[in-house]
């Protein structure tokens, strides 16, 4: 017989434990199946109820005055989540008076304590939803909650809070908001920049402060991106100082901003960065030269057609094309022995 009798006890234990574990799991799944059956059973009623609640919200949109508690049917406690869902759906598509009307319905139903509860006790997605709703409220308490969550460690919660503050045009609180970003671990540069630019021109001095601060590189880059999108020419000079940053990403971002703003003040630095050590910086400088219509860059761009990095060569060829007749003439002259010149001319049917 295999294995001694002394082990049989342990083998039996293994068998018994596996049966118990599996039985417990089967019971848990059975409960979940039953719960799902219950939900399916309730689904038609839920759909009908959702339609009724949606109709109330849509009726509110067509009114010129905010609704009060007396104007509405009572909302059951368990329908609060549904009402918030519908409000969020509608708020994605409306602004101004319509958004105020939607919020008035929520206020009339006294949903605020529920929103606060999901903000504090819910998971990430619930917190994001609560903060998105707060973006449309108009009171000090919700504003304070947005400010508190602008310092959240959860990147999505922080973005939702910042988005809410931007939607509420909380310019007076910009120092506090940017203070949060000084110590933030936020790395979602693109979404952060998208939100920061929503604060508009009043945010320029503080964004410049953030861009030149000791904050994490991601926050500083986002500030530069936001500044470029806001688009004021007053930012060029401070930005040009950043163009000498030792971080290639910052130099790239400043060059991109300069190209976007189209400022002649950026010409010198663009010419300088066409010789940068980083290929990515050279590629961006070549792009910016094209965007600025920088004819002085023609010899450098021509030289960059032989750069070791393909992207630099490609951007240089594209910029030469953008520079018009003189640039295209250079591309034609190099057509026989420069692959990129040939490809760009062919791509543009020239």
């Amino acid at each position, binding site marked *: 017989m295999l*294995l001694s009798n002394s082990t049989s006890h342990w083998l*039996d234990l293994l068998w018994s434990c596996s049966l118990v574990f599996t039985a417990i799991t089967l019971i848990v*799944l059975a409960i979940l199946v039953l719960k799902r059956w219950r939900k399916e059973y309730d689904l038609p009623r839920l759909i009908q109820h959702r339609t009724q609640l949606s109709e109330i919200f849509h009726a509110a949109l067509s009114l010129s005055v905010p609704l009060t508690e007396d104007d509405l049917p009572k909302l059951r406690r368990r329908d609060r989540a549904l009402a918030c869902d519908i409000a969020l759906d509608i708020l994605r598509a409306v602004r101004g008076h319509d958004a105020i009307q939607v919020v008035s319905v929520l206020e009339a139903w006294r949903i605020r304590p529920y929103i606060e509860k999901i903000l504090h006790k819910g998971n990430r*997605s619930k917190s994001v939803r609560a903060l*998105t709703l707060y973006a449309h409220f108009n009171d000090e308490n919700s504003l304070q909650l947005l400010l508190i969550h602008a310092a959240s460690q959860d990147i999505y919660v922080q*973005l939702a809070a910042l988005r809410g503050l931007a939607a509420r045009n909380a310019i007076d609180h910009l120092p506090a908001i940017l203070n949060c970003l000084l110590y933030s671990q936020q*790395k979602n*540069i693109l979404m952060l920049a998208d939100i920061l630019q929503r604060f508009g021109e009043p945010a320029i001095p503080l964004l410049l402060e953030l861009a030149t601060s000791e904050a994490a590189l991601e926050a500083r880059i986002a500030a530069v991106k936001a500044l470029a999108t806001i688009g004021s020419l007053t930012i060029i000079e401070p930005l040009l100082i950043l163009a000498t940053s030792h971080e290639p990403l910052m130099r790239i971002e400043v060059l991109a901003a300069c190209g976007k703003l189209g400022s002649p003040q950026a010409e010198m630095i663009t010419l300088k960065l066409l010789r940068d050590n980083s290929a990515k910086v050279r590629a961006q400088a070549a792009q910016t030269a094209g965007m600025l219509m920088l004819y002085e860059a023609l010899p450098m761009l021509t030289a960059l057609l032989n750069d070791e990095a393909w992207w630099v060569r490609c951007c240089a060829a594209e910029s030469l094309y953008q520079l018009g007749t003189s640039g295209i003439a250079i591309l034609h002259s190099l057509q026989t022995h420069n692959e990129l010149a040939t490809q760009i001319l062919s791509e543009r049917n020239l």
Partner: protein
Amino acid sequence: MSLEYFYPLTVFIENNAPIFNGISWFILVMGALQNLLYFLQLPTAWLELREHSQAEDTESNWQMLISDTTLPISVLVPAYNEEIGIVECVGSMLGLEYPDVEIIIINDGSTDATLQRLIESFSLIPITRAHQLSVPHAEVRGLYSSALHTHLLLIDKQNGGKADAINAGINFSRCPLFCVVDADSILEAASLLSVVRPFMEDPQRVIAVGGTIRIINGNELRANQVHKVKLPRKFLPLVQTMEYLRAFMMARIAFSRWGIVTIISGAFGIFRRDIAIEVGGYSHNTVGEDLEILLKMHRLMKDRKQDYSIRYVPEPVCWTEAPESLAILGNQRKRWARGALEAFFKHRDMLFNPRYGTIGMIGFPLSLLIDVLGPISAVVTYIFIALFSLAGVLTIHFFLAFIALEIVLGIFISVLSLTLEEMELRRVPRASDLVTLLLMAIIENLGYRQLNNFWRVIGLCQFICKKQGWGIMKRIGFLSSK
């Protein structure tokens, strides 16, 4: 057949009792090790889902959709003799909810009407495009684009295999990220928004992200998208539905949390283009190109001592066709096993090499244990259990322990994966479907998994015999049939 026939065998086993006792212990220890790994993976997967689930966070996806700052993606679709469903596949790609996406179809020297169907259906005209010859591929015969769909590019090239086609796509792509999708698969409309999130969250570190693959068989399609999720009606795709669910819900999520993702499915993965180019693109001489490119990326980043992350996110779904016949399924599984071995063998120096950190010390050995040693030990176990039984030396205690490790705990793991999916993602459409999948979770462990282990061992033998090529993979063409 009388058991007396096997009397010599009984004598032989009893005379060599220490050896066969050792084999018995090996059987139990290997089974216990595998189950232990699953026991660790399940709570890890649950924790990861609790902390990072995007399932209810529609708001963040919406904000990304309406933003003009989302990272651009090129979707690369290699196609070889896909005339049956290619037009519908491209149609589904054009309907993706993503603000900045470029669809690149690579016709890999198809001998059927794939090219003509695409040209006619999308009014494609020949164009030229500046491109980088950074990774090797067969000669490109022509490029086509459309005035109607400006984000659509068709590359017509000579046949060179899937890896070769993807390499061509990488060269012609101009986005920082690329996503590889099989031509017989459908990406869920919002899948790119979900799968790109890790890149947005941490653009400096994240270099590759994988999404979930689910079985399309049985689903109701409308406008080239899955309109109504339904379970397959046939047994084999149904059991594969449960198998995929278990693999993606448990192992991949856990590996992602541990930072040891060694595979991103070839049917749906998204990569940083610059890193893919630096590792030389996809390798030609393997059928496990999806596994191999990931190992190359790990190697590159570790060699450079650069901090990086490869993630798996369960929410984005790519629907793909599952084989409906045993022969084709067997071919697929043998190829997977062969591909895994080819990749592991090529990068064998990473195994237990401290230079490669957690990947070398944990990720690689675990993958090897699951994909190679697991099936081998399972097949060896089946053989010995049969021999012990015939020789009459198999005790009921040992047999029940074997059944516990091989079948009962297998069912436990499958049911728990299904429970996890129901608790966190709720993608199974109806309660009745949950019951069907529960049955599959049980049935899967009573023959199907064992058969899979046999196929994998055959795959191993094919690897040793240096067999090449993809074998037969007959398409049903779900997209075109609806």
